[in-house]
């Protein structure tokens, strides 16, 4: 009897596409779940290319999602990116279903609220220019206490962790 085996190699390119897709997916879902209209939330999908590019160059440390209700800006969520040694045997995972189940705890935003996403580079890196993104000239607001939703997605060499500052 012959035995056949197959090996799937997961590359860094797989990881960056997987993480960028999962991150914009979970952010879109979260923003819709807390009351942002589709017209506002859908622009998150246009950030997928930029996030994938920054992950490929290993320059992206954090995405900060702030609510920008008139007169104030508050941190709502962060996504932190951890980089580690690549292991092609590590599977591509996501925990979107688990995060989705917890979204019911979140309060709704006012109808006139909007949001901004700010990308922060790793300490020794800079983010490459990407269409649709501009340099932020004001400091981010203080973020306060956070609730760690968990690892939104992971793959060989990197993981993305979602935290909420609204609970």
């Amino acid at each position: 009897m012959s035995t056949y085996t197959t090996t799937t190699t997961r590359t860094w390119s797989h990881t960056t596409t997987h993480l960028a897709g999962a991150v914009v997916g979970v952010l879109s879902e979260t923003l819709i779940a807390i009351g942002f209209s589709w017209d506002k939330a859908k622009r998150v999908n246009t950030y997928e290319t930029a996030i994938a590019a920054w992950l490929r160059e290993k320059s992206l440390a954090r995405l900060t999602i702030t609510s920008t209700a008139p007169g104030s800006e508050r941190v709502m969520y962060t996504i932190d990116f951890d980089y580690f040694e690549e292991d092609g045997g590590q599977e591509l995972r996501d925990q979107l279903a688990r995060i989705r189940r917890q979204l019911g705890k979140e309060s709704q935003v006012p109808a006139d609220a909007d949001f901004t996403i700010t990308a922060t580079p790793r300490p020794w890196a800079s983010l490459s220019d990407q269409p649709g993104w501009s340099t932020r000239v004001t400091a981010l607001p203080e973020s306060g206490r956070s609730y760690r939703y968990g690892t939104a997605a992971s793959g060989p060499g990197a993981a993305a962790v979602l935290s909420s500052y609204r609970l």
Partner: protein
Amino acid sequence: MRATRVIPGRPQASGSAVATTIIDLVASTLAKSPSIDAQAARAELEPAASLLSMLANSGHLDGETLVLVAGTLRMVIDVPAGEAALAAQLDVRIPTGTATATDWTLHLPKPGHLSPAIEAVVQQASHLTAEPAPTDAPTAAAVTVDLRRLGSTG
């Protein structure tokens, strides 16, 4: 006729690339019908690209959730994500079953918390719906033939 086509999502393709492939597949499938304007169908689908991208990236198109019904065709467009996508092969062959189609419907999934977004898109497109797809493939219209009359012709 039942058909299933597969478009692997992340990490094989970005959400926007998946959405473009879905729209191409649906428009090309409908182009087989002389009664359907495939360009008009494409124009109706393009505003839904962002929603399809999000649904693909979030894993909501994994399985039998996105279904095109036209003529005698019931086509599932399966978009696996993660490890399942890594093992999947792209299959966008144009199926048969739409040659006599005069209308079409693309059924979208409607996860509860995404209802507002789905409804916002569906309301702008007359051929998109969040209603579940029929479980069976449509059949050709029944034709009644009077065999006695058929035998007496000549």
